[in-house]
């Protein structure tokens, strides 16, 4: 951890910390509001998994691509997404990233090369692979990163996409966020493997296991994979072991998890753990960290209020944007 820490620099380390705190705060704001009954639909919280988004995003260039799953708030925040527009989307309001049409599971932000969260488990894997193909096809040295869960690795699309990325030697990075459950289904019930990273061997490229609760460890693994991809070295599968603090969606009590195991993971919460490192290394004081927490809290208070205040889209938007170039549904779009 030391060497990467040096490499990042103090300001960078504090930004990694702030990034995680912002994700946590965003999620807990959403959580509280949802439980009070103020938000429609259903939400999958990223609390506990912040180190992965923060660590990976830190090594990407601004024009790289990312794509994610139903549990995608953290990825967009870490990528620079605007929490105001995210909350507006969660509320189904017109100032949301998708004008309220997408909701939590379908936020995209083309401004940050974020090709969308996705309601279909595993869909991100193919889409991320396609974006990686675009990078290679254009020869622009960009990379594409797909985030997805342990459960997703049992979908056929995972297999097809990783195989294609292998043979086409695409600049694709696959971040397998192993929180050990697909809904209530523990990893041991859905595969025979201890390390899902081993699946990379079936395609002939590297699979790496990393502590998903250690932001610097994630960052280091991602940095290596991104560098290899940029150099034309092809894809990498990174399995980041982690744990979600809450149920699968808000409202799921997650009784299917062993309380002792659950507590052991809570004890390894990536945020206070990293905070301690920062303090120990003299990068920040307790008070500075607390100040970050308060700043972020205020930012998220304002952001959620922004979302709540944003108006609903006009009903005329229902039939808009089904097709490019023509809201009435007959295509007129296109370039020629």
């Amino acid at each position, binding site marked *: 951890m030391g060497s990467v820490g040096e490499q990042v620099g103090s300001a960078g380390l504090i930004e990694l910390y702030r990034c995680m705190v912002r994700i946590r705060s965003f999620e807990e704001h959403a959580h509280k509001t949802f439980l009070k009954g103020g938000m429609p639909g259903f939400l999958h919280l990223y609390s506990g998994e912040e180190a992965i988004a923060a660590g990976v995003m830190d090594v990407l260039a601004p024009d790289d691509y990312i794509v994610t799953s139903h549990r995608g708030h953290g990825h967009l925040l870490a990528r620079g997404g605007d929490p105001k527009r995210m909350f507006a989307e969660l509320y189904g309001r017109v100032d949301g990233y998708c004008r*309220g049409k997408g909701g939590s599971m379908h936020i995209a932000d083309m401004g940050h090369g974020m090709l969308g969260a996705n309601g279909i488990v595993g869909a991100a894997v193919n889409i991320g692979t396609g974006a990686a193909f675009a990078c290679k096809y254009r020869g622009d040295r960009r990379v594409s990163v797909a985030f997805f869960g342990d459960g997703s690795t049992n979908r056929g699309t995972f297999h097809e996409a990783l195989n294609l990325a292998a043979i086409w030697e695409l600049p694709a990075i696959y971040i397998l966020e192993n929180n050990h459950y697909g809904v209530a289904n523990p990893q041991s019930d859905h595969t025979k493997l201890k390390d899902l990273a081993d699946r990379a061997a079936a395609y002939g490229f590297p699979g790496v296991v990393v502590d998903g609760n250690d932001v610097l460890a994630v960052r280091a693994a991602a940095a290596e994979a991104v560098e290899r991809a940029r150099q034309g070295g092809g894809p990498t599968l990174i399995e980041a072991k982690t744990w979600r603090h809450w149920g699968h969606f808000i409202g799921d009590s997650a009784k299917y998890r062993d309380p002792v195991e659950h507590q052991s993971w809570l004890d390894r919460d990536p945020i206070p753990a990293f905070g301690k490192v920062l303090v120990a290394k003299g990068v920040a004081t307790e008070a500075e960290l607390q100040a970050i927490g308060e700043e972020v809290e205020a930012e998220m208070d304002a952001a959620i209020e922004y979302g709540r205040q944003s108006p609903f889209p006009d009903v005329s938007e229902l039939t808009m944007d089904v097709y490019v170039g023509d809201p009435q549904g007959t295509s007129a779009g296109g370039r020629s």
Partner: protein
Amino acid sequence: MTDIKPRTINYMQAVAEALILEMRRDPDIYIAGEDVGKFGGSFGVTGPVYKEFGATRVLDTPISETAIIGTAVGAAAAGLRPVVEILFVDFLPIAGDELFNQAAKIHYMFGGQVDCPIVVRTAMGAGIGAAAHHSQSLEALVCHIPGLITIAPATPYDAKGLLIAAIRDNNPVVFLEHKLLYAAKGEVPEGDYVIPIGKADVKREGADVTLICYSAMVRQCLASAEALAAEGISAEVLDLRTLVPLDKEAILASVRKTGRAVIVHEACQTGGFGGEIAAVIADQAFGSLKAPVKRVAGPDTPVPFSPALEAEFIVNAEKITAAVKALFAE
């Protein structure tokens, strides 16, 4: 009058009861799907079934929709009677080959040698703020594939009787539950009974117009019929219950009587199953028609997330009433 106290349960309980009764009767029936076991099902349907039959007959699968249906085809060919769950109908296209090319066709293409008695239970429909990937009504896709039976019950009573019929049938059946109906209550007998596949049900008699519908739209049509009655229009509500095989006789009998047909479904209009129904009427009841055949259906859009837009997406009694009144105004 009978001594038996009428018993009221909800649609979800009715489905579970059908599963339990059939599994008691026939050891070859198993259930498989994502989180159907220990977790009790993401909508909670299979919880009581797992409680009684445990993990050997109610099997949790990985997130592998093609394997869920694909292995059901193999198991059925080898003599079992799988009842599998695909959580949302939106995920059915993942297993498009397994359902449309394998389950639907093996009986025919193998010359009648192989049966494929599987039931695929799945939840359709909008209304819970679940957005484009968890809200569709995709029955039209299923209905176009010969070899499949498509059932979409509207009441707890029908759900139980039709699911029992579906499980006993030797053909592959797609059984569409509507997530907004799970909590709907109704009288349901305790023991087992069968509602014949392929028989529509007149849920309300009427003289002036036939509202043809299924699944969650039956409630909306009944509410609309009530509103129309207040305006002096007598609407018959015909609940198809089974989409394929389609009860053409019931449709034609009703439309020949009323002279007017309004077809109602939640699915997007273009290419929806309403087109099939309209075509049957425009062909075989043409001489009885006093007015154009109308469809009241979802707009041709993905289902939007925003509650403001989703509410506008879903067909409701008001829209049906307005369409019927416009028909009489023409």
